[in-house]
Structures are given as structure tokens and as C-alpha cells.
């Protein structure tokens, strides 16, 4: 969902690249309705890249079928990535300007310096 928002960093500014991550998995209730709701909003390629960085492989292309008929298997994978995988610690680096955002205790800090805002 996020992109680098530093001043003058307007292109190629997502997905932010993860590094030094510590991932925690927490099982939660599967909610296909929410996933179908979210799917059209996702930038699929970006998600695949990001997931790959934390060792989760997603299909390269979105399944062709309409969002109503997506198979359960696929939605469950998506559920694991979006809702059960929490990055506790780590860094997110902008692929364009190399700005580093820290994630601490599962809370990303996206604040900018006053020179960047």
C-alpha cells in the first residue's frame, strides 16, 4: 500500500524493499470477503516482489477468473501474506531514493525529515 513520499521522489518509488526483517506469523480467521474487496486495489507485481523478499512465493500473474470465483487455495495464500504475516522489525528502502524507513515492534515509521517533507 505504501510508497516513498520524500520530496521529489515521484517515480519508481514502490514497492519499498524489505531488509533485515524479522517476521512473525499469527493465525487469524479467514475472511474471503475482505480479500476479494482488497484484491482489485493491490498492485500485484509489487506484492509478489515484496512477498518474495520474505520468502513467500505468490503466482506471478493474477488468476484470470473474476474475483467472485477465485479458488479458495489462492485466497488462502493471499490471506497468509496479507493478514497473517507481520513484519516485527526491519527496514524498508525506497528503490529510487534509497530512503530507509524503520519498522519497530511491528510499527513502520514513515516520518520524513523536515528537509524531505
Amino acid at each position, binding site marked *: *500500500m*505504501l*510508497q*516513498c*513520499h520524500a520530496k521529489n521522489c515521484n517515480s519508481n518509488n*514502490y514497492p519499498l524493499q524489505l531488509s533485515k526483517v524479522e517476521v512473525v506469523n*499469527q*493465525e*487469524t*480467521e479467514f*475472511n474471503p*470477503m*475482505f480479500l*476479494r*474487496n*482488497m484484491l482489485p*486495489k493491490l*498492485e500485484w507485481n509489487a506484492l509478489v516482489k515484496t512477498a518474495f523478499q520474505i520468502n513467500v512465493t505468490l503466482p506471478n500473474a493474477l488468476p484470470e477468473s473474476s474475483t467472485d470465483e477465485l479458488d479458495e487455495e489462492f485466497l488462502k495464500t493471499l490471506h497468509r501474506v496479507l*493478514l*497473517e504475516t507481520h513484519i516485527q522489525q526491519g527496514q524498508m528502502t525506497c528503490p529510487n531514493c534509497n530512503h*530507509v524507513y*524503520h519498522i*519497530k*515492534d*511491528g*510499527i*513502520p*515509521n*514513515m*516520518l*520524513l*525529515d*523536515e*528537509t*524531505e*517533507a
Partner: protein
Amino acid sequence: MNKEDKSRHFDGRTDKEAIPIFITHEEFRLPELESLTKIEHVKISYNKEEYRKNCPFLVVEIDSEKEATRLIKRAILIRNIYELWGMGKTYEEVHTQVKSKPERWPPYDYKSFKFIVSAFGSTCSSDYQVKIINSFAYLGFKGDIDLKNPEVQFGVLEDYGLDPYLPGPPPEPYMIYFGRSIASGNRDLIQTYNLKKRRYIGNTSMDAELSLIMANQALAAPGKLIYDPFVGTGSFLLTCAQFGAFTMGSDIDGRQIRGQTNRSIKSNVEQYNLNGKVLDTLVFDICHHPFRDNLWFDAIVTDPPYGVRAGAKTLGRKEPFKRPLTPKLIDGIPAHKREDYYPPTKPYEMSEVLSDLLDFAARFLVVGGRLVYWLPTVVDEYSNSDLPEHPSMKLVSNSEQNFGQWARRLVTMEKFKENIIGEHANVLNAKGLDNLSFVYHRKDDVIKEKQSGFKLNLNLISCILKNL
């Protein structure tokens, strides 16, 4: 046994249903009711003219008992819904109406039951209550009386009104309602989310009842994504998640989000067992937010920091040109690259907060999505035209919580069309409110006192709804 079939008449029409609503926040009741009809897809009709703010009863038409139950299952301001059997200015009128539909009685002939008599705006002695209950003896119920867990409950509700010019309650009620209790609202949730029982709160945490009402105003429901850009200690993340929505929040001040060990937004999420519903909290300034352009949110629910109780901040400096903008170094590392970096902030004027909030909502809400937020106002100076506007947002409701000299208003807006780039919020009329934070600060103590008084005054109010 299918209760619903039994409650239908021979002529195929459903019974009249009366809904007494128990309400503390009088200006919030109708907006909540309207929101509930939308959330639960229940059609109701009622006479807006008949609705009075100081009356706890409202009669509405509703298609079925099932729908009535669904309508109020998550209601915070509706206490109860009754199937109306009779109403009138005198008991004679009530009895006549009840007796005109004896076909309604048989399903309850052998059920355990309970009668309650309650008077709004007056009190009634137990002798009087017994007398009233006995006057309904002709119903001939043969089941046991069970005061604890009756299978069916009947209510006699007397409305004596709240006329401030009378020395005491009038001798006779203005209106009497008699009906069968169908379902209750969800006022128990107020206790569940009571701030006194919540492990982590801040000095501006929103009270439980209002937080829950806001979740209803936002049409929070399973599968939706709801966002609070001034999350603070995260009250709305919890109440919206309670109704099944997925929630996320952000704040410029990460300290409030993190809290202390074992007391944080995260610990609250665990306390209420909402793991997996409250998705993420992030630290950033809403004026410099990192969201990729998309219609992410089904609702935005927030209590912006206007400086009434906690000052609003945005990135920047009060006097921007005093020093050249070069990154400061601490231990050879640019200060803003350090993990504990907290950038300089400047006060954030109320009109700017509003215009940023509305622009943000117009850009990131789905069409049909709602923005629910608080706006502080000075009671004597407020007029409805002070509300900020936006070309793609329309006003749904605007309810005042009065604290004497100042008030706050819960504003609900709906995005009704696509946002056009370059269109911005109009907050010109709200500009006058920018310099008021000082006044509020001084009045803080008074406010607290008034707040508790306010609650006591309104606790007695309730409403009735019916179905022809």
C-alpha cells in the same frame, strides 16, 4: 415454533411493532437509526414530524419481527424494540386496541412471562404497577410468571414527557404504549469497551459509547477496511473491528501507539480479542502520508487533534526561515536516520486539519464510503454553514454534544462521486475557529464537570417504533 408466522395477522399484514429506544445522546439517535437501516438493509418508515428530541419513544413501520431484531442487534442508542399492541392517551384506549386483536394472544397462552411497567418522566409505585398489570388480566395467559428468564416479556410504557416549565410530572401520561418485547439493542458493548476497564488509554481516548456510535455511523461491517489518521490510543480501531471491519491507523506521534510494555494499542487489541481485525498502525504525518493513490478505505473514522485537549501537530517549524534546512548530525549519523528520530513539528491550525482531512477522504475513500469525525464549535457562534464542504462529499448527519459554552459535533459525510483532481475542501467558514484552542484549554475543568452532568440529565430518555 416459528414466532414470526405467529405474529402475522389473518389478513396477511404484520403486526404493529413498537420500539422504545433508550438514549443518552439525543441528537445521535436518528442518525444511528438511519445508519442501521443501511447496514442491515432493513426498510423502515416513520413520521419525522412525530420525532421529538426529548421523547424516548418513536413509532416506526417495519416489515417483520426478524428485520426488527436485525435492525437493532448492534444498536447503541436503541434500548429495545417492542411489537406494538396498543397505544393511547388513556388506558381505555390502549385496552380497546389490545382487545381488537385477540388473535395475537394465543401464541403466548402457555409461555412463561413477565410484565414491566415503566414511566418516562415520572415514577410509579409498585402498587400502581400491580394495578396496571392486573388491568391486562383479560389476556388470560396461563403460563408461569418468571421474572428472571421469561419466554416472553410485555411492557407498559408511560410517557409523562420532560416539560421543564412544570413543577413536577403531570398527573396523567401524555401517551401510553403497550407491547411485546422483541429484541434489545447492544448497549452491553458500552460496558465491554468502558475506558475504565481498558488496559491502555490516553487522556483523549474517546468514551466507549461514542466510539461505538461512530462505528455505526461509519457503517463498519465485515470485509470493510477502515482507517483512522489520528489514531492516538486507537479507540476507533477497536470499536470498528468489533463490528467485523478491518482497521488501521496512523499518528504523527509513535509514542502513543507503542505505549509502554504491555500497555499499547496492541495490548488493547489482545484484551478485546480483535487480533487479525486491527491490521496495522503506522507512524507518519497525514499531511505527508505515504499512501499509493488508490481507493483504499471504506470509511475514515477519526477524532482530529484540534488543540482542544491535545494540540495538533504537523511536520515543520513555527518560524521556518530562521535556520537553513540541513540535516543535523548526532554521533555522525544524520538525526532523521536514527531510529528514535522525532522531527520538529509546528502547530496545525484547525481549518488546515479539516481541509487536509476532507481532501484525504475524497481521494482515498471508495464511492459511498463515509468520513466520520468530530468538530469542536463554540455554541453561541456556531451555524450550520460553518461545516467544511467538499465537492465530492455530502453531509449525512451532524449531531451536537453540548458542553455548555462549547460543543463538539459528530459529522458524518459520504463520498458520493469520484474525486476530481484539483477540487478541494472549502473550510473558509471554519476559519473563525482557529484561534479557539486557548479558550478550550482554560475551560477544561468546567468541561469535565459539565460532561458528567450531561450524562445524568439524559439517561432517562427513550423512543417507540411501529408497523402497520
